């Protein structure tokens, strides 16, 4: 019952929250004193980055870990890892794009050799490399193992990105939204909008993940259906 409800509701709720974020972000919250309307990117960029780094990359990492652990090894985990990583690649690219758009007016450049930006880009390459690795192996089991190990190795990068702003003096914003003491630095409607944006993008991720997973499942089913035919044809070869 709960499961059914959540399945039915995930899509609509995501849409509503995204719409709410847009409405609050554009019409309700005030423009920033210094940055003007550009500051509204704060309702997109951090949320997208959060999803890219923690939610989706984290999902992919955990699923990969579960695949490698003998007891929980199953193709489901492999598929989840694959789909999550694909979505993650999209979100990392979105992070880079929104960040660049924001960076042009605030820092005067699209790109800088800043530790956080660079490490984010490197994470993006990790995600792309993961997808390339999957393409290069067509033995199902080999592919699953290799990509799982690779995902685990890539995950080491995530904490580096997070702490990069503290370890290296950088251009990028320090932790402004949530400081290390977990106090909220911005208030009122802005804080609420920010919170809603985080929830909305997180739900968007799970929605996309589910859609992608189903697609993969359907593809596998189709392959399985084709398999019967292929088997029959292969067996007929002998008779001829």
């Amino acid at each position, binding site marked *: 019952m709960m499961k059914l409800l959540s399945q039915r509701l995930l899509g609509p709720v995501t849409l509503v929250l995204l719409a709410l974020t847009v409405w609050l972000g554009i019409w309700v919250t005030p423009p920033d004193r210094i940055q003007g309307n550009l500051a509204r990117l704060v309702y997109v960029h951090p949320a997208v980055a959060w999803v890219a780094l923690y939610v989706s990359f984290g999902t992919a990492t955990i699923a990969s870990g579960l695949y490698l652990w003998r007891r929980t090894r199953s193709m489901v985990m492999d598929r989840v890892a694959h789909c999550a990583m694909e979505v993650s690649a999209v979100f990392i690219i979105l992070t880079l794009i929104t960040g660049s758009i924001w960076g042009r007016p605030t820092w005067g450049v699209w790109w800088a050799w800043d530790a956080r930006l660079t490490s984010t880009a490197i994470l993006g390459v990790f995600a792309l490399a993961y997808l390339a690795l999957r393409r290069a192996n067509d033995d199902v089991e*080999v592919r699953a193992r290799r990509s799982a190990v690779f995902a685990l190795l890539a995950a080491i990068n995530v904490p580096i990105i997070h702490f990069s702003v503290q370890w290296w003096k950088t251009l990028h914003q320090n932790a402004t939204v949530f400081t290390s003491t977990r106090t909220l630095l911005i208030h009122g409607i802005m804080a609420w909008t920010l919170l809603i944006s985080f929830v909305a993008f997180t739900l968007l991720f799970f929605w996309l993940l589910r859609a992608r997973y189903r697609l993969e499942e359907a593809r596998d089913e189709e392959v399985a259906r084709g*398999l019967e035919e*292929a*088997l029959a044809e*292969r*067996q007929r070869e*002998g008779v001829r």
Partner: protein
Amino acid sequence: MSVAEAPGSPVATLTGAVVLVGGFPLLSGVDLTLAGGTVNVVTGANGAGKTSLLRLLGGLVALSRGEGRVCGVDLARGERLELRRRVGWLGHEGSFYDDLSAAENLTFAARALARPVTGVAEVLERVHLSARADTAAKRLSAGQRRRLGLAWLLLRRPQLWLLDEPYASLDVGGRSFFDGLVLDVAAAGATVVVSAHDTLGVSSASARTIRMAGGRVVEDGS
């Protein structure tokens, strides 16, 4: 090697084994039981799936559907590394290092297996390669490479011998040496699976002949 199963008890059992590579079924449902200490010859037309069957038995490809147990290892659970330790493989390529000499290759194998290195010279003698002991493996002739492959297997003494077209490239002397070897090995309790187009010397003897076609076993002369 350590787990010497009772002779006669099955070394390998496959039920409905399917191997898919890139969506194509190399094997399309193989049912087979191989008893320990026997010699089995797999025949069939080109592309019938002989090499694929041997590769499955050796843990070199994954089982896509069906069940299989080889040398006590469950193929479906993906412990192929474990399996590979117990089987010996002789294919067209040769499983040794091209830049090392024949003797160096075998010495490495002996060291890795913690066997006395003195066995190397003796094994080389048996396959008639003593004169080429110091020649780099890549410079050996086709038949000499085959012989080196046999020497490597002799050192390893695996539980299950998988030999893909062993007669290819071997000269007359090599072939009769091979026949003797196979009978010895089987007598010592190991199981031998050979794929072949030729009529082997051993076929006339005790061997069981398995004919494949279209990725399946179509005739089993056990």
